[in-house]
C-alpha cells in the first residue's frame, strides 16, 4: 500500500504526468487568451522554455532566515500541489483512504497561504498589497469551496474521495460542483478575480521580488494548481465506466474543457474590484454552496 502510494505520487498522476500536463495547461491558458484576442499566441513549448530559462538566471543572494523562507514558499506550494494531484482518484477507483478529502482540502489551501506569506516575506510594498488582497480573497472563496466539498461529503456520509467520485449525480451535487467551478478562477488568480496578482496594477503582487528558479517554481505551482483543480472537478463529474481507457479519455476531456472554458472566461472579462468580487462570493457562491449543503443535511435527517 505504501509503495503504491509512492508510485502514485512519483509516476502516474504525480510528478511524471503532472508536470508536463501543467506546462500544457499553462500553454492552453495563454493560447486561448491569444485566440480570443485574434493573435497567434505562444509556441507549444513556451512554458517549458520559460521554466528552463528561469532556472538559468542568477537570483539575488539573500542570507539567513529571509533567504530560506523566500526559497521555502514556492517549494512548499509546488510540493503540496504534487501531493494533491497524487491524491486525485484518476483511473483507479479503489485507492485512497478514509478522510483523504480533508487532506486534499488542506493541500489545495497551502499555495494560497504560501502566496500570502511570500508577499509579506519579500518586504516589497507591492507584495504586501497583493498578499492582503489574496488574504481577503481566500477568506471569501474558501468558505464557498469548503461548503461545497462538505455538502458532497455529507451526501455520501464519507470523506473518501473515490467513494465521492463514484456517487450518483443529483441536482444538489451539480449545484455543489458549479460552486467549486466558480471558486477555481479565484484560487488560480484568473481574470475576473485576478486582484492578488494584478499585473501592471501592483506590478506582480506577491511575486514582485521573486526571480530565477524560485519564480520558475511559482509558475510550475500555478500550472499544477490548474491540473489539481480541473482534475478534482473532472473526477467528480465523469461517470464511472467499466473500461479504464474510456475513463481516462473522459477525465482528460473534461479537465481540458474546463481549462479552455475558464481561460476564455478570463480572457473575455475585466478585473473586478476587491469589494465586488468579495460580494460576489458571499452572495452567489455562498448561496449556492449553502443551498447544496443544507439540502444534503436535511436529506440525512429525513429517513
Amino acid at each position, binding site marked *: 500500500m505504501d509503495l503504491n502510494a509512492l508510485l502514485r505520487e512519483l509516476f502516474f498522476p504525480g510528478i511524471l504526468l503532472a508536470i508536463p500536463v501543467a506546462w500544457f495547461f499553462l500553454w492552453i491558458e495563454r493560447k486561448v487568451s491569444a*485566440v480570443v484576442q*485574434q*493573435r*497567434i499566441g505562444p509556441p507549444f513549448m513556451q512554458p517549458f522554455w520559460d521554466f528552463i530559462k528561469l532556472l538559468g538566471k542568477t537570483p539575488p543572494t539573500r542570507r539567513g532566515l529571509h533567504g530560506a523562507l523566500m526559497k521555502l514558499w514556492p517549494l512548499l506550494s509546488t510540493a503540496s500541489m504534487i501531493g494533491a494531484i497524487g491524491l486525485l482518484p484518476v483511473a483507479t477507483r479503489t485507492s485512497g483512504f478514509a478522510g483523504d478529502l480533508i487532506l486534499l482540502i488542506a493541500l489545495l489551501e497551502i499555495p494560497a497561504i504560501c502566496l500570502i506569506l511570500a508577499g509579506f516575506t519579500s518586504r516589497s510594498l507591492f507584495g504586501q498589497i497583493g498578499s492582503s488582497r489574496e488574504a481577503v480573497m481566500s477568506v471569501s472563496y474558501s468558505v464557498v469551496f469548503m461548503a461545497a466539498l462538505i455538502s458532497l461529503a455529507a451526501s455520501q456520509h464519507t470523506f473518501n474521495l473515490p467513494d465521492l467520485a463514484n456517487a450518483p449525480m443529483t441536482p444538489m451535487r451539480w449545484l455543489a460542483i458549479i460552486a467549486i467551478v466558480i471558486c477555481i478562477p479565484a484560487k488560480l488568480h484568473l481574470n475576473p478575480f485576478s486582484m492578488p496578482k494584478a499585473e501592471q496594477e501592483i506590478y506582480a503582487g506577491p511575486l514582485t521580488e521573486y526571480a530565477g528558479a524560485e519564480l520558475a517554481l511559482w509558475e510550475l505551482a500555478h500550472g499544477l494548481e490548474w491540473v489539481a483543480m480541473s482534475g478534482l472537478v473532472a473526477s467528480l463529474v465523469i461517470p464511472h465506466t467499466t473500461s479504464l481507457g474510456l475513463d481516462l479519455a473522459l477525465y482528460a476531456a473534461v479537465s481540458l474543457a474546463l481549462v479552455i472554458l475558464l481561460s476564455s472566461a478570463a480572457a473575455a472579462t475585466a478585473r473586478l474590484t476587491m469589494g465586488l468580487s468579495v460580494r460576489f462570493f458571499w452572495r452567489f457562491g455562498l448561496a449556492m454552496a449553502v443551498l447544496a449543503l443544507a439540502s444534503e443535511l436535511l436529506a440525512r435527517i429525513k429517513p
Partner: protein
Amino acid sequence: MNTLLFVLKSLMGGVVTLRLPKTVPTQPTFRGQVQLDKDLCIGCGRCAAACATKVIEVKRDRENKDIYRWSYDAAQCTFCGRCKDACNKFHALSMQTHRPPVYTAIGSLKQEYVMIRKRPETAAPKAAAAGSES
C-alpha cells in the same frame, strides 16, 4: 451574454497577426535616413540651420576654406524632413524609403563626407536637370 458574444465573434474572426520574420512594407513617402548626394551639395549649410536636433553639421575647414565636412547621424535624427525641405534649390538631400537598421554601437550609422566647396553657378545646371527629372 455580451461577453459570450464577444468571445464567439473573436473565435470566428480568425487571426490578424503577421507571422514574425515578415516585415511591413513602408509607404513611398516614408521618411528614413537622410542621404546626401555629394555631387549636388554646395555646402551652403541650410540643412544644418533647419535641423531640429542639430545633428546635421556643416563645418568649414580651419586652414583651407574650400574644404568642408558634412556629417549626419541617424541616432539623433527625428526624421522630420526639414533638412530635405530646406535643400529646395539644389536637391542634394533625399530620404530613404525604408526604416534605418538596428545597430549595436553608438555612431555606426554616422555618415561623414569631406567635400570641396563648389560655386553655386557650377552646381546649378545639374540641380536644374535633377529637378526636372523628379
